């Protein structure tokens, strides 16, 4: 949800003050999150719509011992801090990200293995978290992307928007956030992409997953579904996809899981979530292009084209969804 509203100039300063400085380097500034770095620490202002209680549980998971080495742990324990104006904020160690100019250098094996470890770790005991773990927010975000497309100026993109709508209509209700997933017993990241990996300590440390804002109980296939979408739409080479998926499968099998996503062909499990994330990317692409008065770029176009193929094949039987990694 970027470039939606004007940034609040006071927010970066308020975040810098949280880590004891008057000013910091703005690493991200979006409607749903602003991140400011001061030395080896970063402060994050969460989505204004984030519910503080749910966020406290998510931060509790990131701080929980079983997730050490998987999720980056917050520096300040005890839940989010309230900024002047009411936004929730949190403080983290700084980790170095994947170079956005060199996605070819992305750590695909580490990514697959980290997600597998996240899925395989048993849930912390109820008393160890400040409340029940909320649902993973992936399907809700897909629905939000489609809503954003609907409210964006259509113009010349009306045909693309109709294609995206047809693909959206062909998805199972749980992938549209209209029903809970068939069984949601696995901790999922909920918004995995290459911007969600950092090395900690910066530069030389191990890769960790960051951003727990959408983390929660859900179908672990959702976490593999964005790379699956990239692969299916042609953004990602088969070699990278195999490295990512191979590391995931090896790690969950080593943890004793069989079947489901650990079987030789994971597509029966991946298909519906990968469709949903393709629709999400297409919807955001159409919304952003419409708002900027430009044509969709090559990647956005590839997602819309995939939506057209989904809509064309929508008469075919849906694949069943299962649970567990």
């Amino acid at each position, binding site marked *: 949800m970027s470039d939606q509203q004007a940034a609040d100039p006071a927010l970066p300063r308020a975040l810098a003050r949280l880590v004891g400085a008057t000013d910091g380097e703005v690493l991200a500034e979006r409607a749903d999150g602003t991140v400011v770095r001061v030395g080896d620490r970063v402060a994050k202002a969460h989505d204004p719509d984030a519910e503080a209680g749910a966020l406290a549980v998510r931060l509790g998971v990131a701080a929980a011992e079983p997730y050490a080495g998987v999720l980056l742990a917050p520096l300040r324990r005890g839940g989010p801090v309230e900024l002047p104006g009411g936004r929730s904020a949190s403080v983290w160690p700084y980790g170095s990200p994947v170079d956005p100019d060199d996605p070819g250098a992305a750590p695909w094996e580490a990514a697959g293995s980290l997600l597998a470890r996240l899925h395989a770790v048993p849930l912390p005991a109820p008393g160890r978290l400040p409340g029940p773990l909320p649902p993973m927010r992936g399907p809700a975000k897909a629905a939000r992307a489609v809503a954003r497309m609907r409210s964006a100026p259509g113009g010349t993109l009306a045909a693309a928007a109709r294609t995206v709508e047809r693909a959206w209509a062909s998805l199972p209700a749980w992938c549209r956030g209209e029903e809970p997933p068939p069984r949601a017993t696995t901790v999922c990241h909920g918004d995995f992409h290459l911007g969600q990996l950092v090395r900690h300590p910066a530069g030389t440390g191990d890769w960790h997953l960051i951003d727990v804002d959408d983390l929660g109980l859900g179908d672990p296939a959702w976490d593999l579904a964005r790379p699956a979408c990239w692969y299916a739409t042609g953004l990602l080479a088969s070699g*990278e996809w195999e490295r990512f998926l191979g590391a995931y499968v090896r790690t969950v099998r080593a943890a004793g899981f069989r079947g489901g996503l650990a079987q*030789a062909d994971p597509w029966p499990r991946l298909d519906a979530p990968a469709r949903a994330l393709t629709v999400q990317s297409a919807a955001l692409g159409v919304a952003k292009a419409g708002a900027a008065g430009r044509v969709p*770029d090559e990647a956005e176009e590839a997602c819309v084209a995939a939506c057209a193929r989904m809509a064309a094949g929508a008469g075919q039987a849906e694949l069943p969804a299962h649970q567990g990694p």
Partner: protein
Amino acid sequence: MMCPKCGAPMHTYNRNGVQIEQCANCRGIFLDYGELEALTRMEAQWTQSAPPPPPPAGQAYPSGPAWGAPHHGSHGHYGHHGRHGGFGRMLFSS
């Protein structure tokens, strides 16, 4: 999938309807649940002089969905369209 022994990528071959993963490096072979039985059944058919079933249309690993892009080359788009294009950007955003 990757070879559990040496970590190199494995390629799927279709042998008379049975999918066999073979490691490109150490040539090790991985059989899924039920595949060994399928092979044994085929061997029994062979010794009874029954003609083996014709091989179905070849399917290259990794498989993908029907709605996927028709081409799956060895290079993703960010490889040959430049690193600053929409493809690279999409890998880093929600």
